[in-house]
């Protein structure tokens, strides 16, 4: 009887502190912050993995990733939350920071879940950007138009998925 009581007490204590216990047992935690200028998607949350598109190539970040800095290119950031479900969020540009203590910050200028992208608008914008590129004169205008094409292409790709 005493043993039973003790084990239920123990079980009660365990279940109370379960979430804490479990996250402490995860030797590798990834403190993940993902914010756009006007919206916070994740604020110091624990997630399993984050895939980011960067100018140094697309790469996945797991807990205990080597510290690094990178710069985002237009594309989809995929966040695999603790329960495994992936969330896809399109980012325009920004920075990625992986610190020594395994905290990850992704700061984007403009970021939206891919559901919020209008596919037909994306295709139209791509056409406009391509015609702009064809008619642009001068280095700066050409570069600006090329950037627009790059972004629009990434958007069409993301919306299409």
């Amino acid at each position: 009887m005493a043993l039973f009581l003790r084990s239920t007490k123990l079980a009660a204590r365990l279940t109370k502190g379960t979430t804490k216990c479990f996250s402490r047992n995860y030797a590798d935690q990834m403190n993940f912050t993902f914010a756009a200028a006007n919206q916070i998607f994740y604020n110091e949350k624990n997630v399993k993995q984050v895939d980011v598109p960067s100018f140094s190539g697309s790469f996945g970040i797991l807990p205990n990733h080597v510290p690094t800095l990178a710069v985002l290119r237009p594309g989809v950031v995929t966040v695999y939350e603790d329960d495994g479900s992936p969330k896809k969020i399109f980012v325009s540009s920004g920075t990625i920071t992986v610190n020594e203590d395994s905290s990850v910050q992704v700061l984007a200028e403009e970021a939206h879940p891919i559901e919020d992208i209008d596919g037909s608008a994306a295709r139209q914008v791509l056409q406009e950007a391509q015609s702009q590129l064809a008619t642009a004169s001068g280095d700066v205008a050409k570069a600006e138009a090329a950037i627009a094409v790059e972004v629009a292409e990434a958007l069409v790709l993301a919306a299409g998925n």
Partner: protein
Amino acid sequence: MSYWRAAGLNYVNYSNIAAKIVRRVLKPELQSNASKRDETHVKFTPWIKGKPAKPGQQ
């Protein structure tokens, strides 16, 4: 990466353009909020030797 840097743009210019494009393809219900982020009003006046140089320009 280098084609825009070669043309004299920096990453912030790149980012602004990319963000503008993304805002244009959002679904209509998000457009009103997005257009607020497209606004900018700030103007700059360089100062030389304690006096403003040219009238405000971006």
